[in-house]
């Protein structure tokens, strides 16, 4: 019979190989599903994984891949720092919304003035909004020992209500004929986060995501704070003996992840989304949690995981339109990918062993 044996240390080979194996398994299982739906499985898989990267319209989709992956990576990198230290910020979606509201409010306050400093001010306000929203669960935890998972999650719903209220009230476009939603920031040059190189999809949010990946990598490898974060996660007692203050770590990790989520929201509202609207929040903050774990809380892994996630969204949409696949089958396909990634993760921590012995 097959037995599982715990490895003394996670296998380096399997840590790198399991994501590839998971993608292959997803293609097989997904292909079977598409075949049952009466579509050509090879064509469906090609449309999802190949066409956005190398197909006829790849010049457009490669850029869109960055647009979609940018906020996911930016948020996930911030979250991964806390997750490594055992600090669970589940409310990035709320911090993302608050960053967008703060940033957009600053931009709209200057409308219609044109000046170079407006966008930088919005960036600062966006990061501040996200940071502020993350400080609520952080301070409650350090002062009153509340659970940051619950508090940060519940604050998402508060943020969503504030978003609706802003779209309908304070930030509503006065020239919008009574309809909810702010002015379109992407049509206000001083506040617009447009493409840096036309057609590339590169906007400041994508640049910030790349910077965040590099900064997090350096922090974790070379900086004492990175060492403390890793130590606190792996050996909390040892961390305390080493003089790491748990409260300080909570404030720092929550603050960094909140600020990055707020930045992601600001770059999204001033660029691709364009306006504060009731349905501005599109779940990036929650999807980023998945991306962080797919990337194994490693900055480079998160970069790749974010791009892969974006690929399944964009390729999935293409498959849905071009092949007439129901959108639910695309969601099922994404679900399979996550399932297989987590399932084969077993191989990096355990080894399979064939044995004839009866177990006691």
């Amino acid at each position, binding site marked *: 019979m097959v037995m599982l044996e715990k490895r003394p240390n996670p296998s380096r080979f399997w840590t790198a190989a399991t994501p590839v194996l998971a993608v292959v398994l997803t293609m097989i299982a997904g292909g079977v599903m598409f075949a049952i739906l009466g579509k050509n499985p090879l064509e469906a898989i090609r449309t999802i994984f190949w066409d956005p990267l190398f197909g*006829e*319209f790849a*010049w*457009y*989709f490669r850029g*869109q891949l960055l*647009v*979609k992956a940018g906020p996911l990576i930016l948020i996930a990198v911030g979250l991964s720092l806390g997750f490594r230290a055992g600090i669970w910020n589940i409310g990035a979606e709320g911090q993302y919304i608050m960053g967008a509201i703060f940033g957009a409010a600053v931009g709209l306050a200057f409308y219609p003035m044109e000046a170079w400093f407006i966008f930088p001010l919005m960036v600062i306000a966006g990061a501040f909004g996200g940071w502020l929203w993350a400080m609520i669960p952080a301070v409650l935890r350090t002062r009153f020992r509340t659970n940051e998972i619950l508090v940060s999650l519940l604050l998402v719903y508060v943020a969503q209500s504030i978003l*609706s*209220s802003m779209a*309908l*009230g304070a930030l509503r476009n006065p020239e919008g*004929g*009574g*309809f*909810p939603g702010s002015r*379109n920031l992407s049509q206000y*040059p001083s506040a*617009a986060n*447009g*493409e*840096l190189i*036309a*057609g590339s999809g590169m906007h400041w949010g994508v640049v910030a995501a790349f910077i965040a990946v590099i900064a997090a990598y350096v922090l974790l490898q070379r900086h004492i704070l990175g060492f403390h974060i890793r130590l606190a996660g792996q050996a909390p007692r040892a961390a305390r003996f080493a003089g790491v203050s748990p409260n300080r770590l909570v404030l720092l990790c929550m603050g960094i992840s909140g600020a990055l989520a707020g930045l992601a929201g600001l770059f*999204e509202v001033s660029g*691709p*989304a*364009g*306006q504060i*609207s*009731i*349905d*501005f929040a*599109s779940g990036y903050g929650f999807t980023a949690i998945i991306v962080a774990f797919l990337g194994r809380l490693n900055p480079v892994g998160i970069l790749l995981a974010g791009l892969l996630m974006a690929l399944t969204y*964009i390729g999935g*949409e*293409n498959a*849905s*339109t*071009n092949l*007439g696949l*129901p*959108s*639910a089958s695309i969601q099922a396909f994404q679900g399979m990918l996550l399932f297989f990634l987590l399932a084969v993760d077993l191989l990096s921590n355990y080894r399979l062993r064939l044995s004839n012995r009866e177990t006691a």
Partner: protein
Amino acid sequence: MNRRTLLASAAIGLGLSMTGAAFAQDKLKVGFIYVGPIGDGGWTFQHNEGRLALEAEYGDRIETVYQESVPEGADAERVLTQMALGGADIIFTTSFGYMDATNAVAAKFPNVKFEHATGFKREHPNVATYNARFYEGRAVMGTIGGRMTKSNKIGYIGSFPIPEVIQGINASYIHAKKVNPDVTMSVVWAYTWFDPAKEADAAKALIEQGVDVILAHTDSTAPLAEAAKTPGVIGFGQASDMISYAPSPRVSSIIDNWAPYYIERVGMLLDGTWESTDAWEGIGGGEVKIGEITDAVPAEVKAEAEALAASIADGSYHPFTGPLNKQDGSAWLAEGETADDATLAGMNFYVEGITGDIPK
């Protein structure tokens, strides 16, 4: 338009002219963007029925493609671009939230026609808008509801506080009040077009307040399914006939009938006579239909409702006819005066007698 976006448009234009050759074909390609799944049984289902009617009408001369469950934010622009790149000649965007995305993509694809449902922005000559006078149907439902209620409490599930929805609330209330002066109306906002769980919760909350007539302006059948659990509560099919919920709780319905409009507009494009217009038809034009009024409704009430529908259809009666005051008591329409379309299209106030505030 600044230099960056100009360059981006040029790049996309170039791509388009390349694809124009690749997609040179005789069939007209018609695209649809849906906010929910086609199986929602309501709003999106009816648009999809319109698409199927198009296929039946024009057969081999056209080809249709569609994408379900497209979020009303940054994603809509990508899905639209992708459809235009894929060779669509005309694209129907079937939800209010696609307004800015529709106009943004229309700027980049001047040779593709765009038709946006329920919006008001036509920033380019290749964008048309269309809507239906749902409030005419609401007047009929309000009449039936006012006659049928025993608790004198009518509940209304609103999606978003936009003019189209507020028109419906006002029209229902005015006509319920006309036949039953004791009637009161409670409005619950779901902040979604399609979320069966939230819609059911809203219905449940209303029923617990003693409401026995439920009107809904969301897309799924969930409010009816919830109403079915409590004997004596009635409801109406919304967007679609929802006849499978008859005889209880469904007593009648408002049916959105998009097929004639779609057939007309695609026909115009085939003939080369398409131009940007703003269509707003109601019961008279056949775009709003009243579903069968079942035997659960007394014959005299049924006759009254049908007479009202007939008078709206032939233009002899307007559902917003004075004297009518606004909620704050200020005068709106004088005796015999009817509301003009501009006021209706931007309606952001309740009429006198409705309690509660429009969310701000």
